[in-house]
């Protein structure tokens, strides 16, 4: 019996009917054999309504051979019970919760069966933001601290509830959903696919390039279209610029929180130079408008290339000098070192991805393991850290930014030597009917997964987005356990997870 369908990232779509539909018991067995090997992790596990059934799709990525395994199971209308697989595979916890919330399925035995984001079309409208079932510990010695949804700074809303013993955090619960805008439903507007590009860019403004690329790549898969080399290179450069800008900006934020003002202002100014380069290229500091399906409105030109080189040479070097200083200052190290540790084992268990995984010595980087665009031709160096603490997350940003600068120069050299197609975007390109496609992009936080299904006319009939923060918010909760509550801000900044990308 066939248990799964094999596919790859950034390749042709597959026939939706070829994804095996397993009995739930076989599905669980299949996961058992896959997750026994830490080389595999869950990209996403979700459900959608098909005819009068509920179809569950699971996508598993194997890091060592670049394969993606697709499998599914179904539930007849009226049935609402399934055994939870979370006790055995904790990395599924958030996906089962999401399915439960959307469709009213009860996963029996789920240890943490709580709402995810209170979507407008949730199954149970009696569940509302105000009665989120927080975990409680009854004791005279403990107290609770609630923070948010509105925070002290200018950031997105989310609620954090701590249970503390004095200054020490015993437990942190993260309650999100405030940012829910109904993005996935809006992605079904087949009348005008330009809308989908703009929506993708607003899934998270700090990852506009990453999400626009994941979307573009997805449509191209559904049309069996392969982007020409010049376009691939340009997309990779845009993605790496986004990574560098955020890493520098987050370094500034970390410095702010430990009162190191020089690090803060220098990094703020350097981030400005990088995003202004993106603005020089396409007119928007966040790269909105830069990545489009089937082509681009802003092909690179000599002037832009010159600007990119100039800024990276200058700001790059200045950032490296600054970062070296930051990470050798005893007063800063005293605050970062050994704080907010996530162990490698914890990271594996919760299915951590992207940066959060790499700081725990797990070399999970889609650019290398499941390459897309020009990363297929030219693999970047994967950076890892060992300790899983705030220092590791800070250092990783520094070292990754360094790699990205180097990588962009290599890409630019290549770009200069190849013929240009300068393809224009196409918002009416025909998509193949009855297909399923997966598109993964390693944006600065980690893997962004976009999935879509087309109907018999080639219209998008289902769209699913999984932000890396789906996996990684739990890492933050683990990181602050047994820490001083005053260390929460640096722990939070060191991850910098997405609220809107998670809430959708």
């Amino acid at each position, binding site marked *: 019996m066939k248990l799964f369908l094999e596919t790859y990232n950034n390749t042709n779509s597959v026939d939706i009917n070829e994804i095996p539909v397993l009995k739930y018991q076989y599905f669980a067995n299949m996961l058992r054999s896959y997750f026994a090997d830490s080389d595999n992790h869950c990209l996403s596990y979700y459900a959608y309504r098909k005819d009068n059934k509920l179809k569950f799709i699971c996508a598993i990525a194997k890091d060592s051979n670049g394969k993606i395994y697709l499998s599914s199971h179904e539930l007849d209308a009226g049935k609402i019970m399934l055994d939870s697989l979370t006790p055995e595979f904790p990395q599924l916890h958030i996906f089962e919760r999401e399915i439960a919330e959307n469709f009213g399925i009860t996963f029996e035995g789920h240890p943490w069966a709580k709402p995810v984001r209170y979507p407008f079309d949730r199954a149970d409208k009696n569940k509302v933001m105000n009665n989120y079932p927080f975990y409680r510990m009854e004791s005279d010695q403990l107290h609770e601290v609630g923070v948010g949804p509105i925070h002290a700074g200018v950031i997105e809303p989310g609620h954090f509830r701590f249970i503390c013993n004095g200054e020490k955090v015993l437990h942190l619960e993260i309650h999100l959903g405030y940012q829910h805008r109904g993005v996935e439903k809006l992605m079904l507007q087949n009348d005008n696919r330009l809308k989908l590009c703009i929506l993708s860019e*607003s899934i998270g403004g700090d990852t506009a390039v990453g999400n626009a690329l994941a979307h573009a790549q997805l449509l191209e898969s559904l049309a069996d279209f392969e982007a020409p080399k010049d376009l691939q290179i340009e997309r990779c450069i845009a993605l790496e610029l986004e990574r560098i800008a955020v890493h520098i900006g987050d370094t500034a934020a970390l410095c702010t929180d430990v009162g190191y003002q020089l690090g803060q202002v220098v990094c703020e100014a350097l981030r400005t130079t990088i995003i202004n380069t993106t603005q020089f290229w396409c007119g928007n500091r966040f790269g909105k408008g830069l990545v489009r399906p089937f082509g681009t409105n802003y092909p690179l030109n000599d002037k832009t290339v010159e600007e990119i080189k100039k800024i990276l040479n200058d700001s790059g070097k200045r950032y490296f000098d600054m970062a070296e200083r930051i990470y050798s200052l005893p007063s800063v190290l005293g605050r970062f070192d050994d704080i907010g540790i996530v162990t490698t084992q914890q990271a594996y268990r919760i299915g951590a991805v992207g940066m959060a995984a790499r700081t725990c010595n797990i070399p999970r980087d889609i650019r290398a393991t499941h390459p897309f665009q020009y990363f297929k031709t030219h693999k970047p160096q994967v950076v890892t850290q060992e300790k899983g603490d705030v220092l590791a997350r800070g250092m990783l940003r520094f070292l990754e930014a360094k790699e990205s600068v180097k990588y962009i120069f290599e890409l630019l050299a290549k770009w200069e030597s190849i013929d240009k197609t300068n393809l224009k975007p196409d918002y009416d390109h025909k998509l193949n009917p009855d297909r399923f496609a997966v598109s993964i992009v390693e944006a600065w936080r980690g893997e962004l997964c976009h999935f879509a299904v087309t109907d018999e006319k080639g219209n998008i009939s289902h769209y699913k987005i999984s932000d890396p923060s789906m996996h990684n918010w739990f890492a933050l909760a683990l990181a602050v356990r047994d820490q001083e509550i005053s260390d929460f801000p640096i722990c939070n900044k060191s991850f910098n997870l997405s609220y809107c990308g998670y809430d959708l």
Partner: protein
Amino acid sequence: MIKEIKILKQHGIQYVPDLKGAVLTPLFRGRPVIKEQPSEAETEMLIRLCPSDAIVTVGGFGIDIGKCVFCKECALACPNKIEFTNDYKIATNDLNNLIVRQGDSEIKFNEEKIRPEVRKLFKNALKLRQVSAGGDNSCEFELNASGNVNFDMGRYGIEFVASPRHADGIVITGPITENMAEALQICWDATPGPKVLILVGTDAISGGMFKNSPAVKREFLDKYPVDLYVPGNPAHPLTFINAVLRLIGK
């Protein structure tokens, strides 16, 4: 210490000296200009193309920059008729002035609409509380940047504060999600009057790409007058700072 001095020297002077006269890169997508009326067929095509229903036809052809997401696709489709300039002073206090028509060469402020107490009380110091209600965090980034070493709006006494109790007004980003509507209301109620209400970004002004989403709930805006509309996707720090300066009369 020596290393720090070296870094400081490299850092040099970063602040933008003239926030009102700074020139942005030519490609920056700021105020659109309608060079010539598009034909009927072109207009129809543009209406179909525009992702956010920003093309206006009532009273002649226009672009509503309170709805526009600044994708520039209309200008790329009709380069002889529409153009985007790098003029970043695109905010106003009057919703009607957000519609750009042929012949317009600036976004106008409606001086008469400015409440006298705003200028009297906030001219020398304006403390703001920001509320993101479904913002995609690009506008939030730009608002943070408005106070950073480059733009430094603090030089005018404009600042974001942590508590609504300390604030003279609220700055909203995002289309106002249903899940955030109550927290926004509580925050507004906690801000002592007289207070200003500022909407930043296309999402906040019109709902943007989310205006028809069942997950947004914009009733809050029916209840209170808005003092300032700051368009953009996201709004550039210079757009925001100049808008506020204009409002407080500086």
